[in-house]
């Protein structure tokens, strides 16, 4: 069987370290209290809890924010005015949500079906695509791809809306195979041309998908070795049935949830589970999060966190709030502008997150996060640090490292920070906590998620 379960006791413990790891990967990280609750509940219950979509009282608030975004976008007079409210609404939701995995999956699929407002130029359509990715991100992959293929933002983004039978446009067909389902090497140029014919006439009418029969090529096509295909929906079905599809999706899931550099064996294990689950993403993740593969110690710190998950995680850990649209702009400088991926391949992730430009931007966020006063509402460090606020350097550093980084700092970093906190430069009271928090968050290891 693929993805052998992690048996607590036989394979290791489910203590604070394992719980923290699970909650970092399945969500945006947890507070010490949430971590303790997970340990008490046990592995099985904690994994199951990740899959709830219930927002409780927040549901009404989120629905209202969706309406508000649509209004702000419709009222925007200039290009570029739509992006801040879009980014702000999503970021605010990520920080507040009670269902972090749903948001994390939406973020994952946003990078997978990477669509940018720069070309779509319709904020409302971008928000609708986000809601689609959030609602269906944990379901069957085939259903998701079919829905994305008809999604208005996608029909603008890859020119489906202007795909005519007289001379088909290959843009969507190519990326469907190369980036959305199979990966390079598993289709031919002929498959792309024939698939493009199948998607002719997939247009928009009054902002919604419709099949424009006058533009659609009704002829029979041969795609990926299958004869007699007529419509794009059959192309999607054939593509997701290819053996390569499960492997392709498995590699991406592993990069998003486990490690920046998954090996071939791990990819095949997850691909096998995906096939067994008929490409049901939620069912596969449920098995992954409770597997030995997932908890293998080398994976514990094998991911460089992307800017969005990093900043959202920090704010959630301290109950922080921000002027969300300004946070969106700061994240763009760190290399991840939501609703505006760099190209149709999305963000490469891993080491590609890191450049001198993005590192300096992360450093600026670390300062803003610690001191507030700009777009981050000042954090109550006295509350966060508790008794340690007046304790020695060792106690303060341990407490803050526990809250902000699940205690995962290098011994050499800890030693320097303790010396700093105990020195005259460290200051005192809340000021001292802020300074230590800034240094902690801007340390290299703070970027490991």
């Amino acid at each position, binding site marked *: 069987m693929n993805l052998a379960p992690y048996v607590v006791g036989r394979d290791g413990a489910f203590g604070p370290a394992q719980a923290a790891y699970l909650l970092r990967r399945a969500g945006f990280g947890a507070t010490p209290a949430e971590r303790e609750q997970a340990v008490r509940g046990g592995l099985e219950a904690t994994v199951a809890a990740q899959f709830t979509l219930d927002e409780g009282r927040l549901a009404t608030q989120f629905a209202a924010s969706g309406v508000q975004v649509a209004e702000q976008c419709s009222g925007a007079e200039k290009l570029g005015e739509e992006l801040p409210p879009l980014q702000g609404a999503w970021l605010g939701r990520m920080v507040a949500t009670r269902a972090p995995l749903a948001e994390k999956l939406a973020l994952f699929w946003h990078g997978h079906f990477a669509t940018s407002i720069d070309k779509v130029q319709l904020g409302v359509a971008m928000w609708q695509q986000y809601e689609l990715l959030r609602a269906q991100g944990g379901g069957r992959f085939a259903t998701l791809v079919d829905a994305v293929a008809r999604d208005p933002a996608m029909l603008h983004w890859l020119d489906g809306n202007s795909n005519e039978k007289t001379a088909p*446009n290959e843009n969507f067909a190519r990326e469907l195979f*190369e980036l959305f389902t199979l990966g390079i090497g598993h289709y031919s140029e002929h498959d792309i041309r024939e698939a493009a014919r199948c998607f002719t006439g997939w247009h928009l009418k009054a902002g919604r998908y419709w099949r424009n029969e006058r533009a659609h090529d009704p002829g029979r096509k041969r795609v990926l070795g299958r004869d007699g295909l007529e419509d794009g929906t059959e192309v999607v079905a054939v593509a997701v049935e290819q053996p390569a599809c499960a492997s392709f999706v498995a590699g991406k899931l592993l990069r998003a949830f486990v490690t920046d550099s998954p090996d071939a064996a791990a990819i095949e294990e997850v691909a096998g589970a995906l096939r067994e689950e008929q490409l049901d993403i939620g069912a596969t993740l449920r098995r992954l999060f409770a597997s030995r593969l997932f908890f293998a110690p080398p994976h514990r710190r094998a991911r460089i966190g992307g800017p969005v998950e990093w900043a959202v995680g920090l704010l959630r850990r301290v109950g922080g709030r921000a002027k969300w649209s300004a946070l969106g702009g700061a994240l763009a400088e760190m290399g991840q502008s939501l609703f505006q991926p760099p190209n149709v391949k999305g963000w490469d992730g891993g080491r590609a997150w890191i*450049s001198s430009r993005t590192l300096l931007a992360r450093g*600026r966020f*670390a300062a803003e996060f610690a001191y507030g006063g700009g777009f981050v509402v000042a954090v109550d460090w006295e509350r966060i640090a508790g008794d340690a606020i007046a304790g020695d350097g060792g106690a303060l550093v341990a407490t803050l490292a526990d809250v902000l980084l699940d205690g995962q700092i290098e011994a050499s970093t800890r030693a*320097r920070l303790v010396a700093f906190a105990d020195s005259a430069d460290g200051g005192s009271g809340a000021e001292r906590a802020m*300074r230590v928090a800034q240094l902690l968050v801007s*340390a290299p290891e703070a970027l490991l998620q």
Partner: protein
Amino acid sequence: MATTRRGFLVQALGAAATLPLLPRFAFARAALAAARPDRIVVLLDLAGGNDGLNTVVPHSDPLYLAARPTLRIEAAGLLPLADGLGLRSELAPLHRRFEAGELAIVQGVGYPNPDLSHFKSTDIWHSASLTPTEYSPGWIARVADRPEFAGSGRLPLIMCGGGPVPRAIVGSRGPAPQVDRIDQLRPAAGPEAGAAARVAEQKAIAEAISTSGGSGGAALAFLRDAARATQRQAVQIEQAASKGRASGDYPAAPLGGALRLAAQLIGGGLDGSAYYVRQDGYDTHAFQRDQHALLLRDLGQALGAFWDDVVAAGAADRVVVLAWSEFGRRVAENGSKGTDHGAAAPLFVLGKGVRGGLHGAAPRLDALIDKNLVHTTDFRRVYAALLDDWLEVDSTELLGERFEPVPVIRRSS
């Protein structure tokens, strides 16, 4: 050991007499010690696949006119390059350099079995390998890794502008520095009280983490190196920026800002051997006409302003610009008034050290493969020219194979 006829001649005539028999690369090898880290290559990546046929336009070819019923550019709107060939008027600043003999246009550039994926083809161009892997270092990064270029605190590579850092400038040491705003180069300190101490602590923390003992393994080692390099590079870049000036008339588009920054840093004496700048947006699958014209206008204006600034800084004989795209576009337009991914396309090489004019054969519109143009010049022959004749390093060693340089560089005597 068998003595060949040639070997016999060498022995009989003595080494001096055999020089004319030696292939040209022997000279390139001999020139190795004189690599030119003082010279600069500006890599301008026209990302998305520029429509070469609508950039350097064969306006009189009936096959072109037939393939482009709505997108064709008429001769009247073009600047003359040769009989039947014109440059888009949006590129007027480049045409002036063409007339001055400082712009080389290499026609029909590509590689065998063209890959029509943006990402694969970009990787092929950036790595100079037809079978790139995720870890293939960029071709220019392989140069920058050499001691003559990477020695004593130099910054051999730098990316100007935002967006992802490309493979071309990722070498064995990790990504090259990237800057898009000078005012963002100082490490964040937070409020003034104790700011200097905190910056010093950040630096110390980045240095204190040991490579071997860390539980983060390779990922942490990478982050620590990146943090240390960032602190060091930011100081050097800021110093150069404070000395350099860029006063040209750049367009408001991101390309304008990126090339302005490159001009400022070159003028300020930053000893980088390669600058990487990207202009996005060339993936014109639909309604191409206006979008492509805007892109070319920004390109012409930005490159014109950049060149004026480089000349004003007295650096014109040290700088060469290479502007290329990962592929051209399909010969026949599609039903969306756009063009799908294609193959061969022209590229530009600009500089005082450049042998201007048209190079290579124009691709034939009557001999397409799979509806695409067939390349007449391998792109690695252009790289070979920049390596052998401009940076004066052995292209065979760096490209792993011998490519005859396209004679776009005036060879120094």
